[in-house]
């Protein structure tokens, strides 16, 4: 059983975003690098005439920058920003609350929410922004 709303599955497989957080998917983002912001921040991009900061999901998950890929533009309580990932693979329903495991999965960051077996892990955007690397660049 699924709750209303949906997920956008990201590549590499096993990660997803809530569609409600999504603004736009940009296939070949032009990102102006700003190194001093921290390793997980790639730089700045133009989103419909507004500036947004762009982070790299590869660095946040595995410590390695994403090569190529797409940028998903995301809205958050602290402003819009971009997240570069290898790609997007489609939409799927949000798992129901009663299907979620009780405990977070060991070793994963807080912002990767627990998921039932076989389901992608949902990135909680507000928790992601609390990640020390995103917040301070360190």
């Amino acid at each position, binding site marked *: 059983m699924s709750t209303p709303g949906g997920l956008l599955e990201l590549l590499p497989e096993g990660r997803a975003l809530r569609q409600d957080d999504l603004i736009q998917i940009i296939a070949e983002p032009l990102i102006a*690098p*700003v190194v001093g912001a921290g390793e997980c921040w790639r730089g700045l991009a133009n989103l419909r005439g*507004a*500036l947004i900061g762009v982070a790299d999901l590869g660095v946040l998950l595995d410590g390695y920058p994403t090569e190529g890929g797409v940028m998903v533009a995301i809205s958050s309580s602290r402003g819009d*920003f971009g997240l570069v990932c290898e790609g997007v693979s489609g939409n799927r329903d949000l798992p129901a609350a009663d299907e979620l495991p009780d405990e977070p999965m060991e070793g994963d960051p807080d912002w990767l929410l627990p998921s039932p077996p076989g389901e992608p892990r949902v990135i909680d955007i507000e928790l992601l922004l609390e990640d020390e690397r995103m917040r301070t660049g360190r």
Partner: protein
Amino acid sequence: MSRAFRPDDELRQQLLEIFAGEARDELDTLSSGLVALEADPQAALGSGKVDEMMRAAHSLKGSARAVELEPVDRISHALENLLRAEAGRTEVSGEAADLGYRALDAIEAIVEAATGGPPADVNVAGICEELNEAAGDDGEPSGRGAEPPPSAPVPSPSPEPAPAATPAGDSGAHNATVRVSVAKLDRLVAAVRELETARVGVEHATGIITEEAEAADLAARRHDERAGVIREITQGPLGRLQRAARELSDDVNQARTVPLSLAFDPLPRAVRDLARDLGREVELKVSGREIDVDRAVLEVIRPALVHLVRNAIDHGIESPAMRAAAGKPEAGTLSVSARAAGSRLAIEVADDGAGIDGEAVQAKAVEAGLVDSGEAAQMDYSEIVRFVLRPAFSTRDSVSEISGRGVGLDAVFEGLAALQGSVDITSVPGSGTTVTLHAPLAIAATECIIAELGGYPVGIVLSAAERIVPLEEGRPDHVQVAGRRVPLASEETMGILAPAGHGSPAFVIVVADETRRIAFPVEAIRSVLRLNTMPLPSPLPEVELVRSAAILPDGEVLRIVDARALAAELPPPPRILLVDDSETQLERGRRLLVAAGYLVETAPDGAIALARLKAGDVDAVVTDFEMPEMDGFELTRAVRADTELKTLPVVVWSASGGNELFGIASEAGADAFFMKGHEASEQLPETLERLLSPRPAP
């Protein structure tokens, strides 16, 4: 039958917010007018100041009525009556001026209370009665038909709240103004930016269509006729779009600018009140109020100036008796002067008071845990005075009503930093304190040099760039600019902007902050554009080197390099104390040395200079010969006799020359002697560089 318009609560609250902004401007006009009227009634009348004040009181009355703020309506009306009466008199009594100020304070308190501030404890009836009595009026209630001078009839009573009375002279549509919030203007700016990006996109697409059509028509040998039609269809509307976008952009940016007078006009009142409360005599000198600045800059500058002026009187300028005992004029001088250079603004708040109490600041810094006592003991005076810029710093033992609130200079500093501005402070014990605020004139539209590094565009604000110089091959570590050595920015810095590497730089942009110059290497120079710059967006963490960015017309992101952060790579330049009793010579020498890259402080005679030198952090002295109190040779001898100062380079420059003076200068211990004039202009910077080596050149 018409009914009076009665706004609902929500609308009334919105109207009150707008009214509060308007009231602030009118109160400033009235306040500065009262100061002028009190100081010189004849001049104030002759210059139309009283008429201006009556119009302000009248506007306030009408607007207060529109938002149903009856107490303000009544006080404004009574104040207008008093002003009308004063306009017919040759002298203004101190009591009348005090009454006027009390009326303004009452209105301010009522407006604040109406817009969410603390409740106002104001005796409206009492103030109105006193105002009417002073005006010789019978205190009739205000009427809807009242008009400001010169043809103002006596207002008639009106039993009902009436729509806002429109002051004469403001009724024409050509004079109409409307208040717009900065946030709304910012959204308008963003919309214009998108329009501009769209325009470039359309322009590009049109170019391709035209080229394709021309190529096809050429093949069909019908080029001229059909290409002409296409050009007519595309170029005409495109040209109009270009012009409209440009005009719209200019107008929106212009709408953000306001004169500095809005920040300067409250100062005379603040000075008058505070000087009176503290028993000081203060002469306020103001210059540069006509300079236009961005509204966002004004919002930071305005409270900052009031705070600095209060600080200067509360902490700086001494009582008349103390000044007399110190050999100073009983009245202290407080000058607030603004100057615009390129797109930068500098406002100097200088007093001739006692200077900052270094020991008190040092003790407070230790007590507040900002520094340990061992470190504090090693610091010189100029380092210690900078503690007053630290958050929540106050040397007052108890919180005073004036400026010892511990909120102030730090807030000034933070507000300016957010605008890419800064604060400098210098103080000389016994002689006074100068605080300089540096800020951009414009936020919304800034002229930038667009260069290229590592394949990406990178911007330097035009006002921070001194020149562009072709770079020789081989990546030298410096360039020579006007005979001076300017170091290149490090590879580490360039790596922040071009992490994937960069090609061979072909040019350097020589960038200067207030005191230092550095050469920024780039691969190419694209253009100079006027752009709407923005701070880096949240949630991206702050980056010192890139504090703002812009979107280029083609949609590319331009990172704008912060000149101060770039120059911070370099050590601070040497600080020179220039001593001369001639203001003209001081200014001439200051310009010469600043142009050569030195930090310059000035002193009007040897005694003040010696006190400043003992405070520390001066690297060399350039002094005149003939001066009051202590001449240049006495100063030189005193420096050589002081164990802390004896190795300080001293250069004497004098209008008189000759071997005799040269001999006296050498005998006193001067390191060099120059005649003022061409010789000094040519050789002074060079000589200082030699005397200050092995310190790095500025």
